[in-house]
């Protein structure tokens, strides 16, 4: 079931078309990586999703119904540009933002204690925000996005400002929440994060959607018919089913083969085994970063 559906969304700023005919469906419980170069329209999509901006045309459905203003309370948002009220205490600030999402006092106190504990910030509850380190302020910002148990969490560059330890903590939190059914949209330039965390990916360029699919499908779409092998023996340079692209015999015999058209992996395997003892045979799958660059170049 889709939690969010954007149907034929267009957004104009004066004469500028910021978004053109965007169609994205986000499944409940999925993690979508929203990718695109700077100025592609990612922020505009996020602002539409969070209700900050209205689309010029198109439909925004939440749980298959046109989104209602109360549905926005089910969305948590961590913007790329961080900002907090520096003169408030951590407790006051989180309480205020929780109340804006209509959290009850009891629920708010319960959640606050839990998340402050989880992010190792319990001792800072009565401290003013400006007294906190940048990393801890970042954690507070992260908590504001998830405090009210949203069904959808939109995180724009969630790991910027985090050290390795805190990034790991944030990833654990994302995976835990996702496990319990929370849907995520991650907008980031860190491709390995998308690769590791996301189940789906949507790519925007110049206001247009150029990719929108599951990570597995995208990889399948961009695979380059390359096979990586390891083992011992001789590789026939005039093989019928493959062509040797590169070979390395230094410690272990390793090679990259190009699968020739009309032949399957099985055909290559059979031909290889005549002169070569295989210890490893695997399809080379392009990384998201490669796909990102390739998609931008081709579309």
């Amino acid at each position: 079931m889709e939690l969010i559906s954007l149907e034929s969304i267009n957004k104009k700023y004066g004469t500028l078309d910021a978004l053109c005919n965007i169609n994205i469906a986000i499944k409940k419980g999925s993690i979508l990586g929203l990718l695109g170069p700077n100025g592609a329209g990612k922020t505009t999509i996020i602002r539409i999703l969070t209700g900050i901006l209205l689309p010029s045309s198109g439909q925004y459905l939440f749980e298959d119904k046109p989104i209602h203003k109360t549905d926005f309370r089910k969305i948590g948002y961590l913007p790329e540009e961080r900002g907090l009220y520096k003169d408030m205490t951590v407790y006051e600030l989180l309480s205020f933002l929780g109340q804006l999402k209509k959290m009850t006092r009891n629920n708010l106190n319960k959640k606050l204690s839990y998340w402050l504990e989880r992010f190792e910030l319990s001792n800072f509850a009565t401290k003013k925000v400006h007294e906190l380190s940048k990393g801890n302020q970042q954690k507070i910002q992260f908590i504001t996005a998830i405090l009210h148990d949203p069904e959808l969490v939109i995180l724009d560059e969630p790991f910027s400002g985090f050290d390795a330890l805190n990034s790991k903590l944030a990833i654990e939190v994302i995976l835990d929440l996702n496990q319990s059914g929370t849907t995520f949209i991650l907008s980031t330039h860190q491709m390995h994060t998308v690769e590791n965390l996301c189940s789906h990916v949507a790519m925007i360029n110049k206001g247009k959607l150029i990719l929108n699919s599951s990570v597995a499908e995208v990889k399948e779409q961009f695979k380059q018919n390359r096979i990586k092998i390891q083992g011992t023996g001789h590789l026939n340079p005039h093989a019928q089913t493959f062509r040797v692209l590169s070979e390395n015999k230094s410690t272990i015999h390793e090679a990259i083969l190009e699968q020739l058209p009309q032949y399957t992996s099985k055909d290559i395997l059979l031909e290889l085994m005549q002169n070569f003892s295989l210890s490893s045979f695997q399809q080379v799958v392009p990384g998201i970063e490669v796909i990102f660059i390739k998609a931008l170049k081709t579309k």
Partner: protein
Amino acid sequence: MTILGPLFFGMLMIVPAWLTLKDTDKQTHIALFDPDNLLNIEYLKKSNISITKLEKTTTSQEAFIRFAQSQFTALLYIQNPQQATLYNKQKSSIGLDAWLKNLFYEHYTQKKLSKTTGLSTIELDKLVIKLKSQSFIEDEPLQSQGLVGLSLMLGIIIYLFILTYTMQVLRGFIQEKTSRINEILLSSVRPFQLMMGKILGIGLVSITQFTIWLGLTGMLMFGFNAQYGDSLKLFDNQHIEETIRNNNLDIQQAMEWNEIINTFSGIAVGKIVVFFVFYFIMGYLLYSAIFAVIASMVDAETETQQLVFPLTIPILICFSLYQTFIDAPESPVAIFFAIFPLTSPIAMMLRLPFETPLWLVICSMAVLFISFIITTWIAGKIYKTGMLMYGNKTSIAEAFRWIKSS
């Protein structure tokens, strides 16, 4: 602003001077009724005042009837060497009043000095005509210098109140924009709610502070009255003569105390508080809405200065025309500033201690209220777009496009 700045400064100097000159061009016609021929009419010559001396044979009753039926602004009745009354058809005559008092002093000092020798200063003082001013239309005393001071004080207080709290609103808007927290807030509330929430929140803080100050002032006044009330009673209209007689006090000083008591006892505190609260709230709301627009058009607090400055020009002009409001409260200039929404809170406070026609009060309040509604509506539209725009300083033309497109 680089080009407009000198223009604004020029306006600040030229407009009040021009308006004042325009106003002083007007002639004031005064009827002089001096049956005993005590006053040398030569002393009353002034370029914008024309004096018509009524015949010696006229009775006081005839003089009043003639005055009532004529175009004379005021009737100056010299009753005896110590007493003259200025009857005025206008509500205010502070300028005229002060000018006449000064003239009488000069006139009698010179007259007596030339004719009499061996008089002490105290005796000479008693020869000065004491001028009493009163409205010809209603049986109420005209404004005194005490009321003038009060009006100026109210004008300055409301200006400081409005300025202090609206600057807080402006700073709040800018901070939310520069710290980017507005992005989180706008994902929870609508831009209009956010804007009005800030304006009303700080507005309520200001009202709380005002109430506390009002309460403390009331308590202070109550305490002062309890402590010194009996002593002050000795100088009120009922007891002043007896007090001077019994205590052999300096008449001049005793009369000054009497004037202070009369001034303060004549102040309609309730009316002033109600009007102050209304004009403060509406002025605050109007200026806050304008400041919301300014905040959404800039990226840093320092950039606001050149947009805020032009807004203070009408207020400064208003203060510089203060004397005109007192001298000629029904002149077109005074009425314009009392109705123009950017100046009406201050102009109305300046004239509040004096009689103000009901139509003007209603008109001024209505215009201010309608201006607030329109400005807030426009501000809401500009704020909605402007608060999410970073990096560029917005031109006024662009802000107008935002109104059209949202």
